């Protein structure tokens, strides 16, 4: 008990040192001059919290966990439960736009984009175990493929969509080819480097990509060749004229939502099937033990490359849809933070678990929208959650149950 108090005291002192220069002595600018505004009560509050936590709460938690001998058990989904929960989620998603308001459908569309990106990255990180910190680069390639094809060649969304996937896939293949020999954390840094290079190129190739301003005025997708706008360009009929409806902006939003849903479902279906194919099994085997795989005659580079390319293709589709929905693209949307967010979705959900990824995408997209008044603290909490998650449950919220046999001695 005494040593607890002593440790807690030291921890509180350290907390004081940590908090003081950032919160205790705030630099306030008034015109040209700056002055220091001391906020000692914040420092004392922080020190108090750390002291109480270290002295009483932590020992109590440790004791409690020690008594129960194992940490809190969370459900591990089996096959049946997984299928049921996916079915429920899809059912909700299908009826969602017809009962909800405009804002809700808009957020749901955003969620679906992240579901798609999360599922795409899940192939790379969850299935194949390759930590990719530059995933947003392929997302950017997809978005810019559509934007540039529209801008320079006047292509429509539907003809650009496959091109976006193909371009992102080519990028994934070409970038993956040299780097996939590298081990875990080196690979992470190189992919981060590539992601940043793509973004910096988009900023600097001013004539071609519009630089930091990006490209705007990208049209929304058409329905069977008919634009969903109030007025059609010369010689075309709009969708609402064709159907004999009044023009309603809500229709456009629902249409975009349904398209995002379709894309997310395709991603879900494909990744779900691929993991059961020989190549999917090879991904998992490679993730568990590369040397064993090599000695069994599998070619690690090809297998990794297939995962990397497939993840990139889905990111490309997501990017093209993103460009269409926003109507403009600029390099701002493709920073490292976006990669970190998508990675957080995969990690939080449980690497390799599709239901987990979907839930995490919902949580991480909806929470910031709900907690708008805490927007300032949002990223801070986001970082903290990532750290705590790794400590408390590194396998994620809903880890995948893998077929396994335990040997009893």
């Amino acid at each position, binding site marked *: 008990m005494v040593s607890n108090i002593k440790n807690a005291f030291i921890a509180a002192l*350290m907390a004081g*040192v*940590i908090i*003081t*220069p*950032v*919160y205790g*002595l*705030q*630099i306030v*600018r008034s015109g040209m001059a*700056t*002055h*220091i505004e001391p906020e000692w009560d914040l420092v004392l509050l922080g020190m108090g919290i750390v002291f109480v936590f270290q002295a009483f709460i932590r020992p109590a938690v440790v004791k409690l966990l020690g008594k129960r001998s194992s940490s809190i058990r969370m459900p591990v989904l089996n096959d049946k439960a997984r299928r049921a929960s996916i079915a429920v989620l899809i059912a909700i998603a299908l009826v969602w736009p017809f009962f909800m308001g405009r804002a809700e459908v808009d957020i749901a569309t955003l969620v679906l984009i992240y579901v798609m990106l999360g599922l795409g990255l899940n192939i790379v990180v969850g299935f194949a*175990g390759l*930590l990719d*910190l530059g995933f947003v680069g392929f997302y950017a390639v997809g978005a810019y493929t559509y934007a540039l094809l529209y801008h320079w060649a006047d292509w429509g969304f539907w003809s650009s969509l496959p091109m976006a996937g193909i371009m992102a896939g080519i990028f994934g293949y070409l970038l993956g080819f*040299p*780097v996939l020999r*590298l081990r*875990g*954390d*080196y690979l*992470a*840094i*190189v992919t*981060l*480097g*590539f992601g*940043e*290079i793509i973004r*910096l*190129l988009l*900023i*600097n190739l001013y004539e071609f990509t519009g630089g930091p301003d990006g490209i705007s005025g990208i049209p929304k997708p058409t329905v069977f060749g008919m634009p969903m706008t109030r007025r059609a360009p010369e010689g075309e009929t709009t969708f609402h004229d064709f159907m004999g409806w009044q023009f309603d902006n809500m229709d456009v939003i629902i249409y975009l939502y349904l398209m995002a849903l379709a894309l997310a479902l395709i991603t879900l279906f494909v990744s779900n099937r691929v993991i059961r194919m020989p190549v999917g099994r090879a991904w998992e085997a490679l993730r568990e033990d590369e*040397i064993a795989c090599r000695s069994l005659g599998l070619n690690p580079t090809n297998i990794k490359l297939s995962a990397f390319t497939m993840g990139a293709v889905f990111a490309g589709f997501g990017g093209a849809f993103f460009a269409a929905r926003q109507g403009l693209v600029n390099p701002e949307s493709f920073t*490292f*933070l976006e990669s*970190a967010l998508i*990675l*957080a979705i995969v*990690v939080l959900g449980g690497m390799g678990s599709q239901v987990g990824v979907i839930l995490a995408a919902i949580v991480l997209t909806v929470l910031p929208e709900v907690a708008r008044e805490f927007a*300032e*603290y949002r*990223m*801070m909490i*986001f*970082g*903290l*959650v*990532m*750290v705590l*998650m*790794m*400590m408390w449950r*590194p396998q994620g919220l809903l880890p995948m149950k893998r077929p396994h046999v335990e040997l009893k001695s």
Partner: protein
Amino acid sequence: MSEFIPQLLQQLFNGLSLGAIYALIAIGYTMVYGIIGMINFAHGEIYMIGAYVGLVTLSVIGVGSGLPVALIILFMLIVAMAVTAVYGYAVEKVAYAPLRGGPRLVPLISAIGMSIFLQNWVAVGQGARDMAVPALVTGAMQLDVGGYTITAPYSRIMIILVTVVLMAMLHLYIKYSRLGRASRACSQDLRMANLLGIDTNKIISFTFIIGAMLAAVGGVLIALAIGKLNPFIGFLAGIKAFTAAVLGGIGSIPGAMLGGVLLGLAETFAAAYISSQYKDIVAFSLLVLILLFRPTGLLGKPEVEKV
């Protein structure tokens, strides 16, 4: 004589002062990697926090306090080093120590979380906008070479001098002190060192503290030289310093110094002779190329993978 040589000398000086900063940060990456084999992704943030602590100290003292400038700077450096030492220690204890021995990706993800947390921790506390740092060291040395003048601002000369002194001190400390010897033993074989009675947890903490202190010095010096800072400077500086560490051979302290200087030079020359917009691309491309063709870096030892 053409203006080529004086220009070259000017760029050499600029590159050297930039490279010194990268070298200071890179030491932290390389020492941590050398001992526990993880990339301390939050290290760039420690550098940023060091710069902020320096600025806060300066504001508390007051620019026009009448104290000699050298004393004020010394004071800024000492406070920044002391505070970031606590940060380095705490980050290791909170975010990495509980995860040691797990899968490799787990501490890396935790470190990314920590990095995002620290950025926004400062952004909420001190504001996310650019903050002006008063120029304490003004003026520049003018050198005349063949009719052209080379300008060497005193603030940048200070960066080079302080870095050289610290590097020499670090080198002697690692080479001759007990803790330095213990940390060299740990970087050779952590488990064996532990078996021989070295308190490895203490050495790991020590490594984080040394790295954080050097990064803080880099932060304070660059803030004084450039004159502004914001909470997001750590990310890019961190990645570049990591590049420097990899370039020199990660795990090797002289390698980090060499890598830092080389990267600083490469970036300055790219900015001068290609285009200033491409200097970041040059740094990232260098990172990718080294990892592809010589992952052990210039001075690193090849790693043997055991089954």
